[in-house]
């Protein structure tokens, strides 16, 4: 009789507490991972956008210089016009050696209040 009664009781307090503690720990871990994944995804998206924009601007600038459409003096404003980020997030270094112009374009974009992503690309073209 006693044996049958015990089986009807379900979980003991200890069993329930152990289960709840384990569940809480695992849920906390899962939540931490989830938040980290969301943050990483945001970083990845911004960086992808930055890479895409920066490479397009640099490619267009290179072609504009090579074809003579743009001069070296105007190339910085040509690049900045094509980029969506604020002006302070764009650094263009240029150097000319023996008729070749090398452009080094660095762009930075904020992901949130504290973090930012940055991309730096270089290419060279012959001046006309």
């Amino acid at each position: 009789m006693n044996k049958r009664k015990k089986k009807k009781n379900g979980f003991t307090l200890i069993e329930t507490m152990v289960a709840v503690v384990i569940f809480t720990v695992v849920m906390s871990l899962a939540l931490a991972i989830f938040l980290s994944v969301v943050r990483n995804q945001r970083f990845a998206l911004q960086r992808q956008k930055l890479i895409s924009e920066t490479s397009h601007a640099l490619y267009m600038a290179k072609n504009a210089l090579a074809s003579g459409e743009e001069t070296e003096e105007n190339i910085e404003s040509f690049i900045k016009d094509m980029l969506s980020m604020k002006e302070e997030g764009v650094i263009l270094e240029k150097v000319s050696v023996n008729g070749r112009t090398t452009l080094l374009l660095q762009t930075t974009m904020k992901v949130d209040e504290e973090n930012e992503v940055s991309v730096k690309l270089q290419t060279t073209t012959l001046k006309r």
Partner: protein
Amino acid sequence: MSKKEKGLTIIELLITISIFMGTIVVVLGLGSRAISETDYLFLQTQAVFLAEEGIEILKDDAIRSSIKSQMGGESPTFWSIDYEGTIEKKSSLEGCKENLKENSEGFYNLTGNKESPFSRCITVWEDGEALKVKTKTSFFYKGEERDVNLYRIFYE
């Protein structure tokens, strides 16, 4: 009371929770790969630009003539060159590796003082009147070497 009415034991419950959580962790873990994929995208994009740069520098008549004069009938020949016009003849494709450095202004060239993830080797060989050029830009990603190759033929 029959066995079916007993409900779950603590062991069964723990196993169920573990499997459930394990699945969630694996699925979420896959999502975290996104950030490293953009690292690859960035390296590949820069490698394409550096490969194009290699071809562009060869458009310079003076550099092309300098290379031609040093070819001496060897075919193919291997070269490291940079935007400043520095030319180094290499004995092999392997010898060209790890040749791009970053200088104090951040430009990639052959004389900088900081290691860069990129190496670029330009293979040049003559084909009749034409000069065939292959630019190979390499970088390491997750321990494996990845390459971007561009080909161009220059006619006299």
